[in-house]
């Protein structure tokens, strides 16, 4: 197999990018155009096999900004369109760019069912906790009490945590990154593309205009991130902090933040991340960690192998057609009970 060599430029389109200055979405665009050449090389995917599908929202402008095949659908339906596309042609490398409104509100049903089917889509979920394109209404991930144009006295709805939703639905791959960590986002996308089955990469993005600083408390700058996020790697100890001396351990079935060397805690007490564990419990707990009590988990939180939907469909077609006597429409029409009029 000859290795396909592309550069970032090969995946940039000639379209003018129309996001607001300073929008976190630019960083995701940068990450994906960095990830695609790596994915092409790793998996021997030709440029023409990349297809990006989106719904509606700021994030859904994405297909116009990359030079691949692209489909900009209607609000909430990206995962359904992509499900049809991938089922019809499993050879494509299908990405879905979507947001917290597109996939968790109007398109929530398609999102959870794509997860349930484990169809091999690479979903990039831009989470800015707000509706940007409609100019500032609360979303299903907005914090409780958030004041927006449609919640002038604060929301009275509890937000979704996308990771809990994905893993709770037995999703097979979930990763999280923040807009500022382009290298980590790129790495998550590359890992997601290697995963056979539905993968969701949540990227916490900042909306400068309508929700500026929503992730700032834990993701504001490098130092803050070091103290308030933990980047998980499969097979490695769950350590964080600028001195990498804080860690996570299990205490009475709950996660607990401890400092190595304090209160008798040693490195052996710290949990080792197993992204391949099929049981969802620990992954749900990790995805659910909230600031300020816990560091917010980044990186690949869950990555387990299960049969994929499109593969199972192809397998059935191969098996059933090998056994069936019906090979063409004429066979079909003449099958079963027929009679001759003479």
């Amino acid at each position, binding site marked *: 197999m000859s290795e396909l060599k592309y550069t970032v430029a090969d995946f940039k389109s000639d379209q003018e990018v129309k996001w607001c200055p300073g929008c976190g979405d630019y960083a995701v665009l940068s990450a994906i155009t960095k990830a695609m050449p790596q994915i092409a090389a790793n998996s021997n995917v030709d440029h023409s096999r990349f297809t990006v599908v989106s719904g509606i929202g700021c994030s859904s402008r994405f297909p116009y900004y990359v030079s691949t095949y692209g489909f900009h659908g209607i609000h909430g339906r990206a995962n359904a369109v992509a499900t049809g596309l991938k089922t019809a042609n499993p050879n494509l490398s299908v990405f879905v760019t979507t947001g917290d409104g597109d996939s968790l509100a109007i398109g929530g049903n*398609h999102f959870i069912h794509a997860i349930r089917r484990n169809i091999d889509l690479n979903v990039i979920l831009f989470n800015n906790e707000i509706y940007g394109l409609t100019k500032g209404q609360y979303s299903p991930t907005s914090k409780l009490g958030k004041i927006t144009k449609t919640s002038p006295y604060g929301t009275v709805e509890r937000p979704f945590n996308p990771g809990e939703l994905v893993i709770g639905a037995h999703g097979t791959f979930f990763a999280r990154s923040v807009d500022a960590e382009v290298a980590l986002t790129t790495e998550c996308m590359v890992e997601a593309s290697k995963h056979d089955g539905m993968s969701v990469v949540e990227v916490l993005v900042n909306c400068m205009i309508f929700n500026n600083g929503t992730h700032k408390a834990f993701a504001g700058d490098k130092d803050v991130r070091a103290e308030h996020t933990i980047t998980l790697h499969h097979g490695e100890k769950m350590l964080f902090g600028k001195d990498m001396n804080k860690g996570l351990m299990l205490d009475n079935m709950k996660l607990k933040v401890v400092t190595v060397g304090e209160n008798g805690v040693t490195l052996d007490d710290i949990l080792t991340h197993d992204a391949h564990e099929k049981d969802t419990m620990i992954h749900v707990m990790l995805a659910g960690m909230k600031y300020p009590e816990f560091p917010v988990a980044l990186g690949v939180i869950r990555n387990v192998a299960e049969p994929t939907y499109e593969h199972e469909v192809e397998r059935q077609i191969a098996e059933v057609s090998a056994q069936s006597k019906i090979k063409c429409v004429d066979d079909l029409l003449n099958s079963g009970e027929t009679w001759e*009029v003479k």
Partner: protein
Amino acid sequence: MENKNITEKDDVVIRFSGDSGDGMQLTGTLFSDTAALQGNGISTFPDYPAEIRAPQGTVAGVSGFQVHFSDHRVQTPGDYCDVLVAMNPAALKANICWLKKDATIIIDGDSLDEKSLAKAGYTTLDPFAELGIADYNIIVPDITTMTKEALKDFDMDMKSVVKCKNMFALGICLFMFNKPLEHPIEYIEAKFGKRNPTVAEANIQVLKAGYNYAHNTHAFANTYDVHAADLPKGRYRSVNGNQATAWGFIAASEKSGRPLFCGSYPITPATVILEELAKRRDLGVKAIQCEDEIAGICTAIGAAFGGSFAVTTTSGPGFSLKSEAMGLAVITELPLVVVDVQRGGPSTGIPTKTEQGDLFQALWGRNGECPMIVIAASTPCDCFEYAFTAGKLAMEHMTPVVLLTDGYIANGSQPWKIPSMKDYPEIHPPIITSLPEDEPAFLPYKRDEKTLARRWALPGTPGLEHRIGGLEKHFLKGSPSHDPHNHEKMVRLRAEKVARVADYIPAQTVYGDPEGDLLVVGWGGTRGHLESAVDHMRREGKKVSLCHFNYINPLPHGVADIFSRFKKIVVCELNEGQFANYMRMSFPQFRYEQYNKVQGLPFTKEELVENFNQLLQK
């Protein structure tokens, strides 16, 4: 069959009715298949309640199956029945309005107890007098008792024994009409033989018991013979409209070389199309049951973008849910067929009953200027032709198509002279496989000069990478454009593309003489009833013809010419006048009378004839 009088009849309608758990659909199907195998002309129609198992013995829970068999081609399942088989008094009551004046009624005598009569809402113990049918030919065999007797040596529980009683009724009817037992026996053996040989044996035993009982009793001294119909020579099968629709799509897939994808959500009365397609993994069909109606059409659009011949199948309520996505298919100019098997609306309405109320929704039920090709099938068999044609038009003209059928033709079945695929045309979708030399960059919205179809560039094809979507498109590049003149140009191009389809479909035809006193106009699934009513009028020497539409948008050429040759035009449809108003808009120079029915039922020939006669006298 000694000592029996055999009377020849040219035309018989039998209605089997009972509780929805009594197996009436199977009984009716076995009878009609037997008659079809004997060469009779056949048309059948199931009439079942929305509830799967409504309270036993109540009128609401009655399920029926009507078989019309004849010594000639039949166009409808018949208005009224010659024979009513009723498994209980509720079934009798529910079907009293469908009896011919001299009808024979066969009712299970064991079911005429006080409790059952009360349950069915009778106020006396004499149901026949109460219904005013005491002078009909009523036969009251104790079907349940005789079924139990026939199975007394079988090691079966009473519930399973009683379940076999439908076979007793079938046996009686097969004897009455001189039909052999072979087919039902073969069917029962094939269905239960391996899995449950006792059940198979019991059913066959009861079937024979019913047949022998009829043979031995004076009540059935008269039997009837319906000769084989003079049908065109060839191999036949029985097919219902939903099956034929599914198969038509598979045929279009074969002729286009595009794999078939169906994304659908179960909904009455359309579900059987999805079920038929789901069986066809052997032909590579990817039929997927989606999480909802919207996912049904959106997965289909995704598959169409990916190069499949994509369809989605539904009924009225689901058709409403798909509206926004139909607009997406219109603006992305992808081939797609949306089937709406119409049922009584609005909202959930009367889901198991037929209606033609979705015409306006099919024509105009989308936001923006959003034209789609709309075609309608008119018989169970021709669902195959129109599903095939819908696929051909969608793929060759790169536009979504609505295919309208209805609960009546979807569930009804007819004998079908099996076509040969060599007689069907190839389908040529405008697939592009490499970047043309005169295009420095691929122009996804560049069009064919004649059809105005854009080219279909499939993801995975090097050099043709492009982006499409729901935003208005630049007329060549396909990139988003908010330019006012470009938008107007695109709105008109999409409309013109659909309008030009008129050059690729057959001109409108007329059934009967090309001129006369009355032109009956219909569309879709009413064809059989309208034809038989027009035939009836013409046999009486009246100058009546039928102009029946299958192509609705665009309308075929030649319509105004046909309309102009008649003194009166009456538009008949199972709604409140949607097609009539469409005609008033399309051909305002003519005056249109209307005949409308919205009872969830097909027309009857009788009511049509009466109405036509009144119109002729006015």
